[in-house]
């Protein structure tokens, strides 16, 4: 039986249940769409997780309703795996671009030229400053983001330590992209402290331990 045969057969098996299966599929698609639109990162993750649950639920229903053939549910499952993996990879790939837009981040070179040059020495990444008084720094994709609030409180050596720390994250991401992305997919954060420590070792080596620890002291919110 080819796939079209399977679908026709599936339609015959379902009948009564078809609207309910269709509804869960629609809910799942709507949730994915809203997770792309929502601004609050926590809500985005939640809607994305619920979309996955709804998708899996519809597949499970298909599986139990299929009396004539199990192949279609397998096809559906593979389609689901491929689509959601692709979605996750695309989102992670373009996450920095999303962040640039959302934070209205500006290239660092236009405000403090040496910072971009310093990052270029350590790794290939773009450095951006974003408008917030809250001291924060993080790396996403191949971009490093630093808030103006952080620039305000750090002197040059401390800023170098922070840049080295984030540059290590970028290096690490490009060396082991698959593993860290898988960890992200599983929403696990078990290895984070270990990653942060390694990033700190690197930063201390590059910018000196004194600069790193005084930067750490100033930022009571740990930079990610």
């Amino acid at each position, binding site marked *: 039986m080819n796939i079209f045969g399977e679908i026709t057969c599936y339609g015959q098996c379902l009948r009564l249940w078809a609207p309910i299966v269709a509804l869960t599929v629609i809910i799942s698609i709507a949730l994915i769409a809203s997770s792309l639109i929502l601004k609050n990162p926590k809500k985005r993750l939640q809607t994305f997780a619920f979309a996955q649950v709804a998708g899996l639920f519809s597949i499970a229903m298909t599986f139990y309703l299929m009396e004539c053939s199990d192949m279609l549910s397998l096809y559906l499952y593979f389609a689901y795996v491929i689509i959601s993996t692709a979605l996750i990879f695309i989102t992670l790939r373009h996450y920095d671009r999303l962040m640039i837009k959302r934070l209205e981040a500006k290239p660092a070179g236009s*405000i*403090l030229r040496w910072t971009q040059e310093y990052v270029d020495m350590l790794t290939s990444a773009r450095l951006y400053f974003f408008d917030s*008084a809250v001291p924060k720094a993080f790396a996403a994709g191949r971009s490093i983001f630093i808030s103006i609030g952080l*620039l*305000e*409180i750090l002197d040059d050596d401390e800023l170098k330590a922070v840049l080295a720390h984030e540059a290590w994250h970028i290096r690490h991401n490009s060396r082991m992209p698959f593993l860290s992305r898988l960890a992200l997919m599983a929403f696990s954060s078990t290895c984070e402290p270990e990653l942060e420590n390694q990033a700190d070792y690197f930063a201390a080596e590059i910018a000196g331990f004194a600069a790193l620890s005084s930067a750490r002291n100033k930022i*009571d919110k740990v930079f990610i």
Partner: protein
Amino acid sequence: MVKLDQINISNDGLTKFFSPIEAAILRALWSEGEMTTSELTGKTNIPLTSVAGTLDRLVKAGYTTRRTENVNGRVRYVYEPVLSEEEAASEITTKILDSLVQAFGPLAVENFSKYSDKK
């Protein structure tokens, strides 16, 4: 809160309409005009960790503006109040009067005139 949707009548002074930190920041800006972040933390005596998020919120809500300055390679924010104290007072008063009229209609207006006669 900055949005004025939660007014706490029993609080004191500006904290009826703003959080204590917001009120402290606004008071400082009204008396000094332009201020950097470190001047603000010094004047209000509130640590940066508490002030920073509030400053972002005040900027977002349109009560203050800020610009980045680059002085000898040091980047810093300079804050400025959008409304003067009088303008803020008139905005808040209008909002509260509006909500009273919306709730009580002509009764509220009658009480306004009684109130101003008494004063």
